[in-house]
């Protein structure tokens, strides 16, 4: 193929000298700025590889001369943030729950911190808004199984319910049907009595008698319940495991002994205090 480099009059560039069927190709060089930018990126890449972690080995990677690590950055940011909050966190730790409740500044801080801790640790069971679900208490209503004062809520968070923690809240409802304490018919009778407490069924004398013998010790006369024992109020409109006749029958026959972990080993004191303030405010502060 003949090679004759010519100058193109229109563009002022040389041709490559190649020709195919009368078509010639221009040898337009890359723009200078583009070429130098490209060289600059190569230099940048080499410098970057030397300074930052870059080349992977089989068991690790080059560390880079600057010793940079995004994990170290995160640690640093977290500790900087902790330092920033330290003033408030120390004050929360030192103050009593009642004092936190009274100080607008501490209260607002605790509400924000409590909300964030709730979203991380509590919402899996109690729901994002604290609405709960069957078996997991609703924290937004006014009914508390183990007490709704701010100190009682703190104790529940700290030690949990029916777990291996030494100070865990403990109580045990017998499995009346499974363990043969009551026959099926007797369970049905006491179920009707329990429903009658909130006016939903007609009680039989047999049901009332069984309630007096088996239930009244914990659930008290009239089904008012006992927060010391974690015995729910049976006379109100709120049912943890459902208020249908069938659900109540099952609760008596099989017993319900829900558990909640103790958070004292997982969360620090300040976080638990903020959680208590937040949960207390959810249900409206009583």
């Amino acid at each position, binding site marked *: 193929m003949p090679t004759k480099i010519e100058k193109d009059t229109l563009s002022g560039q040389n041709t490559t000298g190649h020709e*195919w*069927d009368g078509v010639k190709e221009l040898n337009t060089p890359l723009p200078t700025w583009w070429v130098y930018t490209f060289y600059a990126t190569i230099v940048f890449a080499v410098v970057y590889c030397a300074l930052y972690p870059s080349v992977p080995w089989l068991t690790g990677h080059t560390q880079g001369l600057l010793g940079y690590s995004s994990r170290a950055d995160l640690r640093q940011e977290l500790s900087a943030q902790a330092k920033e909050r330290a003033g408030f966190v120390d004050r929360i730790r030192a103050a009593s729950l009642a004092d936190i409740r009274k100080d*607008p500044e501490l209260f607002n801080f605790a509400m924000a911190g409590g909300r964030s801790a709730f979203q991380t640790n509590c919402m899996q069971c109690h*729901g994002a808004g604290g609405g709960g679900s069957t078996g997991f208490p609703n924290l937004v209503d006014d009914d508390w199984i183990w007490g709704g004062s701010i100190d009682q809520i703190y104790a529940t968070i700290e030690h949990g319910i029916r777990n291996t923690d030494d100070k865990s809240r403990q109580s045990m409802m017998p499995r009346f049907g499974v363990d043969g304490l009551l026959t099926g018919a007797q369970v049905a009778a006491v179920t009707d009595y329990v429903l009658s407490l909130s006016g939903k069924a007609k009680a039989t004398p047999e049901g009332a008698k069984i309630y007096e013998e088996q239930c009244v010790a914990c659930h008290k006369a009239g089904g008012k319940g006992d927060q010391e024992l974690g015995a729910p109020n049976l006379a109100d*409109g*709120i049912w943890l495991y459902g208020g249908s006749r069938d659900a109540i029958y099952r609760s008596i026959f099989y017993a319900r002994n829900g558990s909640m972990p103790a958070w004292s080993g997982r969360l620090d004191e300040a976080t638990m205090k903020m959680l208590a303030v937040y949960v207390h405010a959810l249900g409206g*502060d009583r």
Partner: protein
Amino acid sequence: MASPARQADRTTPRPPTPEPPPLYAPRARVYPRAIAGKWRQIKWATLVVLLGLYYVVPWLRWDRGPGAPSQAILIDLDHRRGWFFDVVIWPQEIYFVTGFLILGAFGLFFASSLFGRVWCGFTCPQTVWTDLFMWVERLIEGDRNERMRLDRQPMSAGKAVRKTLKHTAWLVIAAATGGAWVFYYVDAPTTLVKIFRGEASMEVYAFVGLFTATTYVLAGWAREQVCTYMCPWPRFQAAMLDEQSLIVTYQKWRGEPRGKHKAGDSWAGRGDCIDCNLCVAVCPTGIDIRDGQQIECIGCGLCIDACTQTMEKVERPTGLIRWDTLAAQQAKEARSAPVAWRPVRARTLLYAALLGIVAIVMLVAFALRTDTELTVQRDRNPNFVRLSNGDVRNSYAVKVLNKRRAPRHVHLEIDGLPSAQLGFVGADVEGSGATATLTVQPDAVGTFRVFVTVPSSAAPSGAKPITFTVRDEAGGRASHDAVFVGPGR
């Protein structure tokens, strides 16, 4: 592979083709010459006023008492407040900024339809800073001819000194420009000290650097290329101009045929233009106004000054290059009845009306602006909660904005749910129920958790619209619509 026939074909001579014009035109460097005159005076005055405002405004102090910035005009992005003397703008009032932008746009359209490219020629930052940079250049390197000579010379010690001096001066001005920019967003006196001590934030240095670089490059190097190639405004500005807009015109009918003129020669049979080229030499965009309207012309009027000087020298009437309308020029060229400038016409009336409407809307919005605002957000998880006695309760996050610089005590009430009981959670709440007093800190948003409870019998089925209202003793009032959700039946 080419066939032998084609090989032969290629050897036949082709007819000679005319040389096509090149596709690329290199920049012809412009060396504008200094000129004195009326329009140059006006341009200097505009420059001093505009740059003075730009550099000085951040330093104006305004006493707002403790806990508030003392800078008269400050856009505090960190704390999300705009401070304009005694007016404080919150982020949700950003529409005032939109309003000002719309006012600016219509103002520009209005001025353009009346006076042509008066924005480009006198007030555009590109023009103002380029003028300032050219003035510095002239001080250091001399006027047009000296600068052209200097640039043709090989590098020498003297040339290096002058060039270094010029670029240093440019960079200092550019840095002051960038500095002044950041001072609109941070406290000027403290930040200035911090900048020199190396204590300012990265953002401050980045923006100073950015505006230093853009000012230096755009006003020092790019100059008229910004107007000709980069700026979109000249492209669509033509839509605002018509044959009644004032533009810089060369009176061809009077000037042509042009030619050199010696003192004492007769003026009969020739035009008034003596082809002195002064109008070309002073043009900051390097064009010849005698070629007629051109996209490069920014309407600065310096060629008018140049021509006036020359006409006075040769003792001919001035105004050979002048502000005039296209319509008037066409009439003069056709020797028909003179056409007067008509500033009042449909186009200008329309722009003036739009300008007025936007201004009135903004004034009304500003006058109706309240210093209390209320937002209500209902908790939707759970949607509602049944209390132990069967009552139905909804929870709301209520935010009360207090734009005053003093604490506020407000009462909250709801309409649309007669049997409702109110409950509050918040450390700034005193009392309970409908008589509770909510305290909102100065210049802050108070957040309260509000419970609305109705007896089971009164609970609506589904959502019922209700209205929250806050009031204070001083007459401040704000409302917000919400709904109360009851169990579906």
